[in-house]
């Protein structure tokens, strides 16, 4: 029997999508969590990202760039969310960040907790390139393309991000030793 090539190969598209979800949803969730600081919202963001990815999966030509492609969608979705909801999030975020710290209580007494708290305090313009480098494994050139800034600016920001984090952690450790 002749194969009808005019019909889209739905099952291979579904298989590709399943592989993306199973392979990258964890990484996307971590990225979303550190972007918004709240786990339910991170879950929503990742789900919406993958639903949008499904709708435009045909535009993904290179599997090696899948993660960057998904992160681009996720960042847009996050920006869209903040465009709509900024006024109410100003209050809610403060409550939620405090709750999140409590939710991660076992770690909050240790080194992980101190680093996580310092990351939450880090300005978004430093936090995001650092996340892309440490969590995403992206090069400075790739980060620059994603954030639409120069590679030199990325280098400066990841440099300062580490300096600021270490500075905050040194302060936290001193505080912890005194109390």
């Amino acid at each position, binding site marked *: 029997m002749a194969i009808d090539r005019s019909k889209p190969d739905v099952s291979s598209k579904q298989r590709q999508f399943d592989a993306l*979800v199973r392979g990258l949803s964890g990484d996307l969730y971590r990225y979303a969590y550190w972007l918004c600081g709240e786990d339910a919202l991170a879950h929503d963001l990742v789900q919406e990202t993958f639903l949008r990815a499904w709708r435009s999966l045909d535009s993904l030509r290179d599997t090696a760039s899948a993660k960057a492609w998904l992160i681009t969608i996720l960042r847009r979705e996050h920006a869209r969310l903040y465009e709509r909801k900024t006024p109410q999030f100003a209050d809610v975020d403060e409550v939620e960040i405090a709750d999140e710290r409590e939710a991660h209580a076992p770690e909050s007494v240790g*080194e992980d*907790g101190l680093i996580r708290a310092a990351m939450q305090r880090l300005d978004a313009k430093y936090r995001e390139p650092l996340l892309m480098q440490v*969590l995403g494994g992206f090069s400075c050139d790739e980060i620059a393309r994603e954030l639409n800034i120069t590679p030199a600016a990325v280098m400066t920001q990841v440099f300062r991000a580490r300096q600021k984090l270490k500075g905050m952690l040194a302060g936290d450790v001193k505080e912890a030793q005194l109390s």
Partner: protein
Amino acid sequence: MNCLEFRRELNIHPQSNAADFVAHARECPRCAQAQADALAFEGSLGRALAIPPPSNLAESILLAQATEQRRDRLRWRRGAGWLAVAATAVLAVGMGWRATRTQPLGDAAIAHMLGDEAPALALTAPVTDAAVRTAFTQRGVELAQVPADISYVQCCPVGKFKSVHMVMPRANGPVTVMYLVDDHDSRASDFAHAGWVGRSVPMAHGTLVLIGHDASQFDQVQHTWQVALQASTRI
């Protein structure tokens, strides 16, 4: 490469293996020590950032995608049917749509309830009104009043919908209450799946879904939420 250049590179690319970077670390003990410290810090940073994702994350995304696909297909069929058949046939298509439309929502809600949050069904101690208000505020709904006897509240996606998921202990077993914000497609319907019975009811700003083993408990819970949600505001 001198020490200053090395330290700068160390804070930008701690794991660099560029030849001049590696050579400088070999020649300069102080910079080699700084590199060892920086790599230890990178390890700690990577561990701290590795927040574990929810265990059902991939499944919930795939379920949302399957639900969306099915809805799209149903919409398409509905549109095609409308163009193709006469008014009586349109009515039949509409009824068929109604019957099948509710099934994915019911399946999604029950699957969600029986997922990671299944232990919540056993909770009996009431949560605070503030916790319930906060969850609804996160979903963009300000409650004028909070129904009593809610033992669990959490914001979570159900299929493709954003929901507030709650449990209300009742005499004949717990009733799971899910409020799907901005779902305006659902109609009032009853469903049953995997030994559970459920009801979906359109409300202000979304759909209320009730699930339990005893449907006779639904009327009172539905009334309570109807009163609370009618007085709510979308923010």
